[in-house]
């Protein structure tokens, strides 16, 4: 992490006094107890109290605060709901933590232009709730959608199970109001489909809070499909389930969602959620199809044929929405179920080419033996996003270190087979030191140069995403002890 600026810490009192000029004084927290809830995001293995927390109420306040910090060389860490899993909102000891929780209003619902203008602190799910009376919804659905904010979704380019068909956040955002570190207020995009010039909206989406602070967001809304059905398929090998996914896609079908779970996970979730999964299979595949009723029925038939061709030994088609949701129930219980089976686990987040699934799972099994730790796997098969859950016991000396080494080895292997380090959790601080597995010095320097264009003093969320020293180290720090995650009520899958 960047070196602590002692002179800033020495000036803490006067800085807090100054900040009070820019916002209501009750929106500033600097006592040790008050700032404790902000010391970590959902990657609770890392904790650091900030110098002070500021909760501005409008764009002008954000601009004034950033301008002040820029002028006085004070680091700023922006934070949405704090549900991120890679430490992207982890404070620094000498930073001002800029919380956007008071930006919690939906500003305009525009059905005519099929968009919603909202403040960034609004949760993902409440966007859908606000438009569903008219049959609309907001497509990206990260599993933490009940609590995560739309501003955070943009920072992490959040996905969800439907991203193969409907894209991730970047494909569903139309515009933003953003404040740069020097206080400049700008707008990228708007209620129209495209902007001219450089695609600044595309660049800031997924930039993990390093380029600017969002103060307003415009998202696209879609009409809900007429019909949604799911198939629950069982296979005697993971290879067969993976081949089935490839054949579905080669057959010209793009399902709304496709998920694979391996045997350890089926066992864990079935005990936990009683979802009624078949017990005599090595892998299950859930395929969800949506569209008009007749289209869904045709596609179900086609998927059924493809599954049979791939030696599926179990097949059930949801008869109604209740049954469809039951298919998902076990899958959604994956994380807490593992929490019940093991005192601790690490959750990894690599993306791989779909066809490499069997190879990667084999390698994970090998690594599991090498590191002497159990692992269970769930896989967003549609888009290649793999979440191995590494089980360990932090009370046993060296297990955490071994688990981290195991996690880093998995991510390195993902990159080796043509995948990437993170599909949806972000790099943050968790995978920062693995960036050199994917990028060489020139690639990283180019990205740091882009950062300079937005924030020449590197004061906004420094120490995240890009390694300060280019070296490879262990990654995989989503450590869950006794199922005790931060925001543990949020379903993760």
């Amino acid at each position: 992490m960047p070196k602590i600026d002692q002179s800033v810490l020495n000036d803490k009192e006067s800085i807090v006094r100054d900040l009070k000029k820019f916002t209501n004084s009750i929106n500033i927290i600097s006592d040790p107890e008050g700032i404790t809830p902000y010391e970590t995001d959902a990657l609770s293995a890392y904790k650091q109290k900030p110098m002070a927390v500021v909760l501005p109420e409008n764009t002008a306040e954000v601009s004034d605060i950033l301008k002040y910090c820029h002028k006085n060389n004070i680091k700023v860490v922006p934070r949405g709901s704090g549900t991120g899993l890679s430490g992207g909102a982890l404070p620094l000891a000498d930073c001002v933590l800029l919380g956007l929780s008071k930006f919690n209003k939906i500003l305009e619902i525009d059905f005519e232009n099929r968009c919603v203008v909202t403040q960034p602190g609004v949760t993902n799910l409440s966007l859908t709730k606000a438009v569903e009376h008219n049959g609309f919804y907001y497509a990206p659905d990260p599993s933490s959608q009940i609590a995560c904010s739309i501003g955070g979704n943009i920072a992490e380019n959040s996905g969800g199970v439907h991203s193969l068909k409907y894209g991730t956040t970047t494909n569903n955002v139309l515009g933003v109001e953003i404040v740069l570190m020097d206080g400049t207020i700008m707008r990228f995009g708007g209620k129209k489909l495209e902007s001219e010039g450089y695609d600044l909206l595309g660049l800031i989406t997924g930039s993990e809070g390093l380029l600017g602070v969002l103060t307003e967001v415009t998202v696209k809304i879609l009409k809900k499909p007429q019909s949604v059905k799911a198939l629950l398929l069982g296979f005697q090998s993971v290879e067969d389930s993976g081949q089935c996914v490839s054949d579905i896609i080669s057959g010209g079908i793009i399902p709304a969602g496709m998920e694979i779970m391996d045997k350890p996970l089926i066992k864990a979730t079935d005990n936990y959620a009683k979802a009624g999964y078949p017990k005599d299979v090595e892998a299950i595949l859930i395929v969800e199809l949506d569209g008009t009723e007749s289209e869904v029925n045709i596609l179900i038939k086609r998927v059924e044929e493809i599954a049979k061709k791939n030696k599926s030994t179990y097949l059930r088609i949801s008869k109604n929405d209740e049954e469809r949701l039951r298919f998902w129930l076990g899958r959604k219980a994956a994380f807490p179920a593992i929490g019940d089976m093991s005192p601790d686990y690490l959750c990894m987040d690599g993306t791989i080419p779909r066809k490499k699934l069997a190879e990667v799972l084999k390698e994970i099994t090998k690594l599991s033996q090498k590191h002497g730790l159990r692992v269970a796997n769930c896989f967003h098969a549609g888009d290649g996003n793999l979440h191995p859950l590494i089980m360990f016991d932090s009370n046993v000396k060296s297990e955490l270190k071994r688990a981290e080494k195991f996690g880093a080895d998995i991510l390195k292997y993902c990159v080796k087979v043509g995948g990437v380090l993170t599909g949806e959790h972000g790099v943050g601080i968790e995978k920062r030191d693995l960036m050199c597995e994917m990028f060489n010095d020139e690639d990283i320097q180019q990205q740091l140069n882009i950062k300079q264009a937005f924030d020449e003093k590197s004061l906004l969320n420094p120490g995240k995403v890009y390694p300060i020293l280019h070296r490879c180290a262990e990654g995989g720090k989503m450590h869950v002890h006794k199922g005790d995650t931060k925001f543990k009520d949020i379903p993760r899958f």
Partner: protein
Amino acid sequence: MPEIYSLSSEHEVADFIKNCNSEEVPIEITGHNSKSIGRLIQCSKSLHLKNLSGIIEYFPEELYIKVKAGTPLALVEIELDKKNQELSFEPPDMGFLYTGQSNKGSVGGAVACNLSGSRRFRAGALRDHILGFRGINGKGEIVKSGGTVVKNVTGYDVSKLITGSYGTLVALTEIVLKVQPKNEESQTLLVNNINLKKALNIFSKSMQTSVEISGACFYPAKMSKFFKLNDLDTTTSITAIRLEGPKISVVERINTLKKLFDEYKKTISVLENYQSRIFWKNTTDLQFFNNSKNIVAKIILPPVNTDQFINKFENEELKYVIDWAGNLIWAEIPENDSVLLRQLRTEVTKLAGHMTIIKAPNHMRIKEDFLTTVDENIKVLSLKIKESFDPKKILNPGKMYSGI
């Protein structure tokens, strides 16, 4: 005339740019020279990437294709078609507009211009379909970003920044594009002889249903005549809505729309698969402005403002076609009418949109801005971004804005 360099490997391109950087020599970068978008620039060296061509890998089941930047787009489409796949953003064939002949140009050129066809409002733009790239920045360094997978948050999404940057940030060498299965059936619901306001209302109403339309355009009466399709009434305005998917589903959805727009039943007709595909190809390829000698502009507005914009210019010499369900106006104005051009630009800004000049005589490309940006902060930030890739500003200098 600039010296022309046709290079055929990434390594050669990197060395070439490195040398130009050390000598501070500006370079014009072109692919197949199929488009003349952007400000006219003068460089002593012209770098052609036509020979940097070929498909590197194509995995239909992985839904991506990786190609060298100079690969002809037409070749890519032929390869995809063999596996019943396509680029679902429907890259337009701009050759018809510029020369009256088909010339889809290179993949790199398409990425540099971020052009998308009629399905854009449903399937996204080209920028939504680029997964990764390799290219050479202004210092001659090979830089890359993204990958071959859809879900990826590893570092900044530089692929998006590159898309639509008109070759001012990198000379592209390699591109990964997402591909999609081809739709089994295409049918088009036509409503004849209604005005723009009613057409926009039809678009909006269709989008409020679950019918999932994938094309929605409007031809005023004077623009509809160029069509030579059997099933098309070309004496009046045409309002067209496309539906795609499995045949049974398309038929069902067409019937839903027919019922919804029952008030127009006397003028409703349907284009079947073959003619429907021709109709949308002609629309996407701007064949209504085939080999135009005039100024052609692409105007993008929030769809609710489109009618107001067109009304403002009712009495002017303006030809137009509406696409993207009302989000896009293709406009043609006389080649020397810079007064009308400025009026369009002023009005589009007032209505929260923007205008890009896609074709103009060379004398105009020197003095006129081809983008509308009025926000000085965006220009300042854009300049900083340009400098972060190309500090000596040697790649397509001035192509986007003066100085960028």
